[in-house]
């Protein structure tokens, strides 16, 4: 790990894993509002579908990755769901968010050493269901932070929509970004959701006019600037490129991985680069590993809790100059059929489901195979940008 002098963050020093990992199967659960399902039921369904997609049986899975959050699909849950009892390597360096991009990096060693042949990465949430019971949700971890409890929340600077609306307003000041430009992101994602029968917002169209007419509940944000709260999950299966060549579907090859860190963590108020994300560290590292430039990317999916977070990641990943993101996304740039930078072609967290990035990777794999519901023509290189605030990750996948 290296920190440049005067920098507000850094990139993890990753070894080159090009040519070591391929994704040979993907699946996701039904996506919904409150459904009464448990997280394990949700992820179990996604895993069943990923196994079918990969032509594998449950006993073929000998590696399992997830993230250390409550109720994730660990080895005990896997065996309970499938009635198996075989030895499985496990790692908590997977799941959604940034882990959906970096899981292949940590799986590479298990695959290289033969410790595992097929490594499953999963993530799921039942936050829409749990919201009624107040047992979970995106604001809770922030409410537990004592600096936030004592220096931010008493003033009402809480929770995430307030943080990111504050960042959006500053971005507007520094770079001239407009509400119409943020709206273009929401409209593109909604159009993709309208084409995707699995998306929660499938039947709800959104025009820019309707976006602008929507009331601002945390000015400058409208509800359309904010992601959904959903029940859902996803899964993908990693193996070596050699084994993946025998899978029923064409493989997606892991070409590059990067992980960036912000030194101020989730205390966004104090982040020196207030209108940036740690993608400025993760994306160049991943693109260097993959031997590509941003101009080579056909599809960019990214963790999109708010429109401004998408805009910043587009800039910080180098798809345009810093500050030019507003002009860049205006119009049809992000639409699947624009021939420019197709973005979140499943609808993203704004309009598909808030499953914290796992479906974004599933979507990239499907697009590389030509299976997208909003198909990107001749999609050869797809990128997923993961985000948590303290970290950004970048995953480059190449058509196999």
């Amino acid at each position, binding site marked *: 790990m290296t920190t440049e002098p005067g920098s507000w963050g850094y990139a993890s020093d990753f070894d080159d894993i090009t040519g070591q990992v391929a994704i040979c199967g993907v699946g996701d659960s039904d996506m919904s509002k409150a459904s009464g399902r448990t997280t394990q039921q949700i992820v179990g369904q996604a895993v069943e579908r990923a196994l079918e997609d990969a032509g594998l049986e449950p006993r073929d899975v000998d590696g399992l990755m997830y993230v250390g959050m409550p109720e994730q699909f660990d080895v005990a849950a896997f065996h309970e769901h499938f009635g198996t009892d075989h030895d499985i390597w496990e790692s908590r360096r997977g799941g959604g968010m940034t882990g959906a991009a970096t899981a292949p990096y940590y799986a590479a060693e298990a695959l290289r050493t033969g410790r595992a042949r097929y490594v499953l990465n999963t993530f799921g949430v039942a936050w829409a269901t749990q919201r009624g019971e107040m047992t979970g949700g995106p604001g809770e971890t922030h409410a537990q932070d004592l600096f936030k*409890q004592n220096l931010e929340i008493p003033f009402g600077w809480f929770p995430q929509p*307030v943080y990111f609306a504050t960042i959006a307003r500053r971005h507007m000041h520094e770079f001239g970004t407009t509400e119409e430009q943020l709206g273009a992101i929401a409209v593109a994602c909604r159009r993709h959701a309208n084409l995707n029968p699995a998306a929660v917002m499938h039947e709800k169209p959104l025009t820019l006019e309707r976006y602008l007419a929507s009331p601002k509940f945390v000015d400058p944000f409208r509800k359309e600037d904010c992601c959904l709260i959903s029940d859902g999950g996803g899964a993908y299966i990693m193996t070596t490129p050699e084994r993946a060549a025998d899978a029923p579907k064409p493989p997606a090859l892991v070409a590059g991985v990067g992980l960036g860190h912000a030194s101020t963590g989730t205390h966004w108020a104090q982040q020196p680069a207030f209108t940036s994300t740690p993608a400025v560290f993760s994306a160049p590292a991943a693109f260097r590993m993959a031997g590509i430039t941003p101009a080579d990317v056909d599809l960019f999916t990214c963790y999109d809790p708010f429109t401004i977070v998408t805009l910043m990641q587009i800039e910080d990943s180098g798809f345009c100059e810093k500050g030019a993101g507003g002009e860049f996304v205006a119009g049809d740039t992000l639409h699947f059929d624009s021939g420019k930078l197709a973005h979140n072609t499943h609808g993203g967290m704004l309009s598909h489901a808030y499953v914290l990035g796992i479906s974004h990777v599933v979507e990239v794999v499907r697009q590389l195979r030509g299976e997208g519901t909003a198909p990107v023509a001749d999609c050869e290189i797809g990128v997923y940008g993961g985000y948590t605030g303290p970290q950004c990750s970048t995953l480059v996948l190449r058509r196999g």
Partner: protein
Amino acid sequence: MADEQDHRIEGKITRAQFPLPDVTWPATAEFWAGAAREELLIPRCDGCGRFRWYPKPECPACAAEPYSWVPVSGRGTLFSWVVVTHPFLPQFADLVPFVPALVALDEDPGVRLPTRMVDCDPGALTFDLPVTVTFRPIAFAGVDGSVPAPMFVPA
């Protein structure tokens, strides 16, 4: 709000007084004690003299541990703000609409105080507007007590 995009957060409440600050929490007790005397205190590193905001146990610049709370002028500039009309916590119900803001201190604009703008027309706020501190009670619906806190008005 449409039900599919309701962002109300009602997670685990850790203290009966939440979301009032815990004025006894050692890391920020001096901050709140100063506010009770209408003094704005900011921690400054004894090692390098830089402000250490938030008051973390170790200085991110020089790694020294000791720090002291020093008074500042209470003058700054408006770094950014939002106008909240939706109560994200039930305790915020009586507050809306209100204007959470970040104020950059004149002594070091890198120090950004999460605060609230008061006595102002939200529509008239502008970036980098000169602002000055005023001490007002924080109080919430359904929560006993109130705590004097540094809020800001246009200078």
